[in-house]
């Protein structure tokens, strides 16, 4: 039994809709649709009733190959790099969950036996330094900060210096949220990047975002080079299509998913888990 060629167009359109409704960016949904156009004619089943299942498993396999090698194993990275301290910088647009992610990463690292120093690199927003300090207090992790309005690069430098002298494993650098369309702020970020010279730069994206996720990730990658991303707020029933978009279109692996505001609410990225959500 094969899929009726007449039905293929409609079927492809329905599949594209499933992806779009899961917040997969349009260009990635289009790409998957084209991939499915190649795969659908090859489907052979014994009974007509088996077609839906066969289509779903082809789509799952297409998405899986898109996400092949797209998990960034942060814990392993930590173990394979013998440089200490390792500096990790967190970047992204306003409100995506950078500061909360840093707290969750610091917590996870502590559970794994690694020590961190947090750099309060958002010297601009109201309450930003206090927010990170409160996390530091709760976690028993040292926060290095300067006065509000001070140079973020200097804070990062100071934190790295502190981590070196105290033999800490990690420096987690928080930066202020910024629109990737603001060239002055992107220049400022590039400067922090030059001074801090991080071993890893993590783009923090909000999985509530739709098509803009790709734009954001691309520009941040151009400005400072992104090594991996973290997708937050996946617990808000957002189908997480943004993870697919960012992972594939920007070619960046996903390290973690944020699944809540608690310190334990950080899970290593698992493509199968994500695929299940899209199809739920």
């Amino acid at each position, binding site marked *: 039994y094969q899929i009726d060629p007449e039905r293929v167009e409609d079927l492809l359109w329905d599949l594209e809709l499933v992806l779009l409704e899961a917040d997969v960016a349009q260009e990635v949904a289009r790409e998957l649709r084209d991939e499915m156009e190649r795969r659908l004619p090859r489907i052979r089943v014994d009974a007509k009733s088996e077609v839906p299942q066969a289509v779903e498993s082809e789509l799952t396999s297409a998405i899986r190959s898109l996400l092949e090698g797209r998990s960034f194993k942060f814990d392993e990275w930590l173990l394979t790099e013998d440089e200490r301290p390792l500096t990790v910088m967190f970047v992204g647009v306003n409100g995506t969950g950078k500061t909360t992610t840093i707290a969750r990463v610091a917590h996870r690292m502590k559970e794994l036996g690694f020590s961190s120093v947090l750099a309060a690199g958002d010297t601009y927003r109201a309450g930003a330094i206090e927010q990170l300090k409160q996390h530091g207090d709760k976690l028993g992790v040292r926060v290095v900060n300067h006065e509000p309005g001070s140079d973020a690069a200097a804070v990062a430098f100071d934190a790295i210096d502190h981590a070196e002298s105290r033999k800490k494993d990690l420096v987690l650098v928080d930066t202020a949220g910024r629109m990737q369309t603001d060239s002055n702020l992107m220049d400022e970020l590039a400067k922090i990047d030059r001074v801090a010279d991080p071993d890893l730069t993590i783009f923090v994206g909000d999985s*509530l975002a739709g098509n803009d996720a790709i734009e954001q990730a691309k520009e941040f990658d151009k400005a400072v080079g992104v090594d991996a991303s973290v997708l937050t707020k996946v617990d808000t*029933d957002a189908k997480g299509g943004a993870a697919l978009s960012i992972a594939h279109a920007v070619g960046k692996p996903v390290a973690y998913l944020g699944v809540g505001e608690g310190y334990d609410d950080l899970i290593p990225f698992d493509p199968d888990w994500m695929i299940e959500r899209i199809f739920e």
Partner: protein
Amino acid sequence: SLSENLRDTLAKVANANRVDEDLIEEIVREIQRALLQADVNVKLALQMTRSIKERALEEEPAAGASPREHVIRIVHDELVQVLGESREIELKPQTIMLVGLYGQGKTTTAGKLAQYFQQRGLQVGLVAADVHRPAAYDQLQQISDQVDAPFYGDKEAGDDDAAKIVDEGLAELRDRTDIQIVDTSGRHSLEDDLIQEMEDVFEVADPDEKILVIDATVGQQAGPQAEAFNDAVDVSGVILTKIDGSAKGGGALSAVSETGAPIVFVGTGEDLADIETFDAERFISRLLG
């Protein structure tokens, strides 16, 4: 002969219609792609596209209008209909409650609104009802200092204190301010205890305006979340933030259609001065790219 000429003319007209119909289909497909790219809810985009196509084929183009202009005019009209009657928040004594998902810009918007009303001669007070986020108190207190507005909050607040803080805060601020703005914690529809908290705060505050703050980057979640917030507090207005970024804000259409409430303000940056009244024309032309 006359019949030949007539036949020729009729053939041309029929062909023109064929060309126009195909062209219209093509333009409408392009519009659909633009709507989806702009994060308009998939079902809403399909619904709009169907209606646009129907109207484009049935309605007479305006004199001298090209097929493209004809379709664009209809698209524009459909979008205006979805956005609904525009209105502004009145300059009068009232209590305003801000709600929305995480990180949308509620706390910053509270400060922006305070500045906006103060510049128009009203006294504004700010209530810090977010008892969950680390340093939420500090954030709003610093903002209150920046705009020099009276502030009420509890630095040592416990997880159950939101309604109590609002009760005390409004009692304190209502006789010395014209407008009180209640900033609440980020939340989403699946968290029953936070939805309950929002309903408790709503009951205690009895706000005149219940504003849903939504980020221009929000995609397909805009509709379902707006619906949930509306069910809980009967949203009276929407504020669309971060339109200074690259996002087109298609999610805002769902926020409006689910709540039946218009967009009253837009956030155009991080500074407290970065707020403007909603301009439907600008929004529509930006949405369509």
